[in-house]
């Protein structure tokens, strides 16, 4: 698995600050080898090799239906691979593993949903256990700590439905950090946030991985808040994929090859614009 060793953060906004990536000698927190995932007849991806190391930030890009979320589901043990191996800290995936934190898409929360910010975090602490929610002072302190870390303590007692999208995502990050996971899986956490909040969320995750060595696998459609921080990109499209530094993957020739059609990548002042790529990858060409 010498495939692609992460090179220095190519377009990092903070020169001189290098992510605490371990040398390629340290064991990967996540490793996929020859991995394939099928949904029915369709092959989402196959032959996927990827190693995620401590503190590494990998952006997972690609059109809808290319199997990005399914990859996350495979990692949390909700979907079995149809071929190949997937190891998390050297072991097969297990549902409910403490090694993994999961941040889902921001979704509209009804205003009278019986859930405050602190309760959402609390669910992450002990919501998976049977029985009644009898919590003590220690539990409350832990929840406060987590909310403080993401800067959400000020609205700990607000109902989730009354918080803004950006505030909700902060709370979701706190929830995902409950087990002090080795890997954070982010499934489009920036969806429906404005650019200001998008940057704030990405920076929060970036700080975390630098301070704690948490590896981040970040599924997104939003290139620009994420690519400057990403060590590598996994681009999924049409049953094919490409892994590499953002500079190597985000080029017209690579994306044209992945999509099997003319795709233009325009770079300007460190920002990327992809033109001609279909938003949804229609089934059909995905058979490998």
């Amino acid at each position: 698995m010498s495939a692609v060793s992460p090179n220095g953060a190519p377009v990092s906004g903070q020169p001189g600050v290098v992510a605490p990536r371990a040398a390629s000698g340290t064991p990967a927190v996540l490793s996929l080898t020859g991995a394939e995932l099928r949904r029915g007849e369709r092959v989402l991806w196959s032959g996927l090799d990827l190693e995620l190391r401590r503190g590494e930030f990998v952006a997972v890009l690609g059109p809808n239906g290319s199997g990005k979320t399914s990859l996350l589901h495979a990692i949390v043990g909700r979907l079995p691979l149809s071929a190949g191996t997937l190891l998390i800290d050297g072991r097969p995936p297990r549902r409910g593993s403490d090694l993994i934190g999961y941040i889902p898409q921001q979704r509209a929360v009804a205003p009278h949903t019986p859930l405050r910010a602190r309760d959402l975090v609390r669910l992450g602490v002990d919501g998976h256990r049977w029985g009644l929610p009898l919590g003590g002072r220690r539990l409350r302190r832990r929840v406060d700590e987590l909310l403080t870390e993401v800067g959400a303590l000020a609205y700990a007692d607000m109902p989730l439905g009354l918080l803004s999208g950006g505030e909700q995502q902060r709370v979701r990050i706190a929830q995902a950090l409950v087990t002090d996971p080795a890997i954070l899986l982010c499934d489009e956490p920036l969806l429906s946030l404005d650019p200001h909040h998008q940057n704030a969320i990405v920076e929060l995750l970036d700080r975390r991985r630098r301070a704690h060595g948490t590896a981040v696998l970040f599924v997104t459609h939003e290139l620009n808040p994420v690519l400057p921080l990403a060590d590598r990109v996994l681009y999924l499209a049409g049953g094919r994929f490409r892994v590499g530094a953002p500079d190597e993957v985000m080029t017209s020739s690579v994306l044209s090859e992945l999509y099997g059609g003319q795709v233009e990548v325009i770079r300007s002042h460190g920002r990327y614009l992809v033109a001609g790529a279909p938003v949804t990858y229609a089934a059909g060409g995905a058979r490998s």
Partner: protein
Amino acid sequence: MSTAVWHQIFNYDDYGQVLALVANSIVAAAVLGVVGGLISTFVLMRDLAFAVHGIAELSFAGAAAALLLGVNVVAGSLAGSVLAAAIIGALGVRARDRNSSIGVLMPFGLGLGVLFLSLYKGRAANKFGLLTGQIVAVDMPQTAWLIGVSVVVLLALAVVWRPLTFASLDPDVAAARGVPVRALSPVFTLVLGLAVATTIQIVGALLVLALVVTPAAAATRVTASPRLIPLLSVVFAVTSVVGGILIAVGGSIPISPYVTTIAFVIYLGCRVAGGVRTRNGWARRPAPAAG
């Protein structure tokens, strides 16, 4: 005429003696209030109000069939409920598919119930009671049954409380944390079926929602605390049903109008209080949010 009607509604001449006669009913009602109050918090979280109605109609059909066959009415009602819960559980999790199927199921159940009742030659009060609730002066049937089933419901809720909350409010993360989100859905529908079947015995099939939806709907208007909501919800449900009985024993009309009215008034009060709280920013927010 009007005094006659009034006398029918309120007549507290021998209140003390009547109260002694219905003591059992009050105990059973209080237990059902606790069940209704707790289960309604999950009905609200899972957006199952319509399913409650669907289960109630089939439960009614089961009870009517039992009445016709001369077997235990609570057992018949439970059988109908469990059948409905199994069907609704099998319909899947997506609300849209579920609701249209329930809409199909509901009138069929109600129609069956009407058929069985029209074939039944017994007391008219029994018939009417299944739809709109018992007249309290009539001894409540099978109190032990009701309490037994209620205890089962409460125990089941106590076991699944945390994962069910997680799965209901945050299904994606719950699944990632290893909560059996899919398996919990039919489990809860079954527990809900049991709760509905017992509640029907007091307020009737048509008015079940007053005890299995309204209490938590009122509570969530004034608080979002996961401790206070079930607590308030239970207080509201018990107040509605016990209060309904205490008023109803003075007259000869069923208890359900009293129960539903009390529940509704509580809900209105909570809406007003919640509106005020929302206008005031709900909770204290010391620092402006950074994002």
